[in-house]
Each structure stands twice: as structure tokens, then as C-alpha cells.
């Protein structure tokens, strides 16, 4: 038996250039952060927040996707299980970066920080960040352990445990992610509040986390991994993007519409600034990129099953997610629509860390889980 050889073959080998690329991207990020820090530190901290939150959302969305697959015992996605697992490899980096941001940047980002309200004050704020990040890291680590153990020992015990802890995870995720989005994003406009805010951010994370999984899977397929990927998988992937983009615009519009209808000044101020001349174009671009494009593009059945169309849609959505978070952070923070080299550079810096973390995590285990009970169903998946 040469099973060890095939196991090695099914592992992702990090192309040597890719590590160099991620280091260069990180360098670009650091240079842009330093270059802008002297003139406008608030803008730099705003960008740190945007990028941090961006990649945390990708990790949250991707792991939620995986949890849903486990809870529903979905067969079709069994062979892609390692992709959200690899994305969750970014979580320790995210935790460290977020804690650095919380400890050094809170006073620059959040204007409530000098005050001592019972909820929004610096010690409790940092404690919550530690709890949220710790809880997510704990559950992601646990899932990863079950998944890797399943490769080694086989059987059903790891599969059952993974399903049980996925259920626990989504219940833990609901309050922690809601409060995290209130803490990190909504508290920037601290006199404004929206009770639908958490679900908008959660759906956005789910949508874009799925886009990240799809993009990584299809890039790997183009590199020769996942030879079993067929058009039925592609159709299922595009159904996720299609459905979630509708869901996203549904909650997005609900918030906008209720505030518009209610017409209470302390609520409308949020949208008054965002639909002002300076922000109007980005405001509309956000909806067009995150909803109109995937909705109209993926509606056609033939496009929905096309691999390049899906790659394009995923990339567009991942750009759209940055825009979505940018629109939630910057108007309330600096008030200036300052998209430029610093924004781009700092995003690339974080992207470098993300690529480094995800590829490292991906290379540590088989790219296709060897003993997943639904693996065969996944290989033979057909459209129904």
C-alpha cells in the first residue's frame, strides 16, 4: 500500500513565490500605515479597524458556513471542509491584531472612550474583546482538531462531536458576534443605534465568507486540486451567493427604510451623512456591488454553473465587503471619503497576513478530508 504517498500528494504545497508575495504585501501595508500615521493617525486607526473587521468577518462567515454544513449533515460540501478550516487559521492573527488595536487605538477610534458609561468604557470594552476572540478561537480550534483527528483514526466519533460543537458554536456566535459588531463598528456613531445592525453584519459576513471559500476552492481547482469538482458543486456555490446577496440587501434595505420612514433626527443623521454629496457614490456602489451585480449576473442558469463567472462574482463581492465596512466606519470616524493609496496599501498588508495564515493552515492537513463519512456523496454530487 502506498497510501502515505497519496496522502502527501493530496496536501497543498505552498508555492515558494506565494510566501514572498505575502511578505511583500505585509511590507506594503506597514509602509502605508507608517507613511500616513504622522499626518492623520485617526485615518490609519480607522483602516486598521476596517481591515481587522473585514478579515474577522471572513473567518466568522466561513466557519459559520462550515457549521451549517455539519449541522445539516450536508453531503455535497464534504470535500471542501478544509477550506473554511484553513480560513479559520487566520483567527489567532486576527485576535492578536484586534487586541493590539483595542489597547492602542481605542482612544483614537472611539470618541466615547474617555467617558465612563456602564457598558462603553475601556476596561469592559477590552474584556469583551478578549472574551469574543477567545470564544471564537476556542471553537475554531476545536473543529480543526476533530477534522484532523478524523483523518487519522476514521470512524464516526469525530464527525458526531464536530456536529455537536457546531451547534454550540452557532449559539455562541449569535450573541458574541452581535455584541462585537455593536462594540467595534456601531459604537463609532455612538449616539446612533439600530437593532437590526447585528444581523446586517452577520449576513454580510456569511455572504462574504462564502465568497472567500468559493474563491479559494476555485483557485485551488484551477491549480489542479479538487479534481472531483463538477458543475453541480458550482451551482450550489452560486446558489449560496445568490441567496445571501438577496438576504443582505433585504436587511440592508430594512434598516435604511425604517429609518427613512420613521424620520427621527437622531436616527436619520446616520444616513444624512452617508447620502451627502461626498459619500453618495460609494453609498450606491455598495448596493450595486453587493446585491445588483450578483443578483442579476447569477440569475442565469448557465452563468451560475460557470467557474470563471463564479470567480469574478466572488472577487467583486470581496471588494464589495470592504466597501460595506468602509461605509460603516469612515463617515462616522473621519467624515472624509479619503479612499487612496493608504487604504489600498493597508488592505494589502492585512491580505498578506491572511494569505500567509490560510496557506500555512491549508498545507498542514490533507486538502480533502480522508475519512469524512459523506465524502463519496460529495464526489458524486449531482444537481437535483
Amino acid at each position, binding site marked *: 500500500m502506498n497510501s502515505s504517498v497519496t496522502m502527501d500528494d493530496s496536501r497543498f504545497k505552498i508555492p515558494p513565490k506565494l510566501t514572498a508575495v505575502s511578505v511583500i504585501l505585509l511590507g506594503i501595508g506597514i509602509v502605508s500605515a507608517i507613511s500616513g500615521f504622522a499626518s492623520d493617525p485617526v485615518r490609519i486607526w480607522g483602516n486598521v479597524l476596517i481591515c481587522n473587521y473585514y478579515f474577522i468577518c471572513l473567518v466568522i462567515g466561513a466557519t459559520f458556513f462550515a457549521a451549517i454544513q455539519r449541522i445539516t449533515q450536508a453531503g455535497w460540501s464534504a470535500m471542501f471542509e478544509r477550506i473554511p478550516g484553513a480560513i479559520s487559521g487566520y483567527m489567532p492573527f486576527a485576535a492578536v491584531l484586534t487586541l493590539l488595536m483595542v489597547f492602542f487605538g481605542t482612544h483614537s477610534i472611539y470618541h466615547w472612550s474617555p467617558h465612563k458609561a456602564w457598558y462603553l468604557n475601556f476596561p469592559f470594552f477590552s474584556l469583551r474583546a478578549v472574551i469574543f476572540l477567545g470564544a471564537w478561537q476556542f471553537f475554531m480550534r476545536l473543529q480543526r482538531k476533530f477534522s484532523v483527528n478524523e483523518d487519522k483514526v476514521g470512524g464516526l466519533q469525530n464527525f458526531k462531536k464536530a456536529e455537536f460543537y457546531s451547534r454550540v458554536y452557532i449559539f455562541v456566535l449569535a450573541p458574541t458576534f452581535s455584541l462585537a459588531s455593536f462594540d467595534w463598528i456601531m459604537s463609532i456613531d455612538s449616539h446612533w443605534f439600530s437593532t437590526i445592525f447585528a444581523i446586517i453584519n452577520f449576513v454580510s459576513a456569511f455572504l462574504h465568507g462564502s465568497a472567500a471559500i468559493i474563491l479559494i476552492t476555485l483557485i485551488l481547482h484551477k491549480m489542479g486540486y479538487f479534481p472531483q469538482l463538477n458543475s453541480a458543486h458550482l451551482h450550489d456555490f452560486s446558489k449560496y451567493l445568490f441567496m445571501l446577496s438577496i438576504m443582505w440587501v433585504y436587511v440592508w*434595505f430594512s434598516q*435604511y*427604510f425604517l429609518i*427613512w*420612514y420613521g*424620520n427621527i433626527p437622531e436616527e436619520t443623521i446616520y444616513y444624512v451623512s452617508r447620502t451627502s454629496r461626498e459619500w453618495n457614490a460609494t453609498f450606491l456602489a455598495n448596493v450595486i456591488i453587493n446585491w445588483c451585480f450578483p443578483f442579476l449576473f447569477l*440569475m442565469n*442558469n448557465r452563468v451560475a454553473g460557470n467557474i470563471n463567472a463564479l470567480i469574478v462574482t466572488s472577487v467583486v463581492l470581496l471588494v464589495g465587503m470592504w466597501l460595506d465596512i468602509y461605509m460603516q466606519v469612515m463617515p462616522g470616524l473621519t467624515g472624509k471619503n479619503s479612499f487612496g493609496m493608504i487604504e489600498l496599501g493597508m488592505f494589502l498588508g492585512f491580505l498578506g497576513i491572511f494569505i500567509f495564515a490560510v496557506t500555512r493552515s491549508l498545507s498542514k492537513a490533507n486538502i480533502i478530508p480522508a475519512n469524512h463519512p459523506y465524502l463519496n456523496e460529495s464526489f458524486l454530487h*449531482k*444537481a*437535483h
Partner: protein
Amino acid sequence: MLKTDTNENIVGVFDTEEALINAIKNIKKSSFKIKNVFTPYPIHEVFHELGLTTRLPWLAFFYAVGGTILVFAFLYWTSVIDYPISIGGKPDLSPSFIIVMFVMTILFGIVLSLVTFFTVQRLYPGKVPVIIHEDIVDDKYVIVIEKSNAMTERDVVAINKLFVSNMAIEIGLKNDVEAI
């Protein structure tokens, strides 16, 4: 379009989905034409093998778009042109249209698609269905081949043999079967 005719049909009953698909593939290779297939649940491969396509999704799309336009025109005419009323100082043409347009898009899309489907399939409430085989709502799969006037006795024997060689568990005759 469906055609009901008075010709007798040869009906082959199968026990498993695999046997049915296999039989369809083999009958396609022969000179006989499948008139209809009945299964307890939709089987994607049957649509695929029989080359069945539908334009209903396109129709549904145009119904929905038509509904959006129609409702927008109605709202615009009533609350902007004919009888504008200022409510809370909101503009006459306003986002409040969107919810109504959204709901009516769904309503038009669904109701008109349903009406089209029922018309094309000649379905109506209270229609008495032709029972091809009493187990097709349970666990049996059925292929129907029409016994046309042009067929000789030898053809009929050949069809029977074809069914038997493809694991049909039962063969019968039936009138009034609709073609696909």
C-alpha cells in the same frame, strides 16, 4: 403541448430508479419512442435523458418584471400624477413604493407562472387523473410507449421484450395516457 389520444399504450413498470434510467437509455437506442415516464418523485436524470427543457423560468422572469413595471406605473399615477397627498412631508415619488413593488413582483411572478403551468399542463381543480399504475405514487416507476396504428404485432412483441430485458416487473396496456 399535451395530446390525449385514444390509442392504446404499452406500460412497463420498474422496481428501482436505476432500472428505470437504464431502461430509458436502452429504449432511446431502439427505434421506439417513449411517450411518457411516471415516477413517484422528480428524477433529474429522467429530464436529462429525455431531453426535456422548459421556458417557464424565462416566462416567470418576464412576468415578474412586468409586474414591477405595472405596479410602479400604478403607484406613480395614483400618488404622483392623479392624487398627490403630502404625508409627513415625504416626497410623492419615494422609497415607500419599493415594498409594494417588491411584493407585487413576487405575486405577479408566482401567480402568472402558476396559471401558465396549469394551462400548459391542462390541469384544473377537480380534474380526474388517469391512473397509469396504482403504485406510481408509492414506489414504482413507469415508462409508457404508444402502440400506434402503424405498429405491427412484431413491434409490440419487440417492445415487450425490450421491457422484459430491462428488468420490468410488470407490463400492461393502458388507454388515455398523455404524452409529455
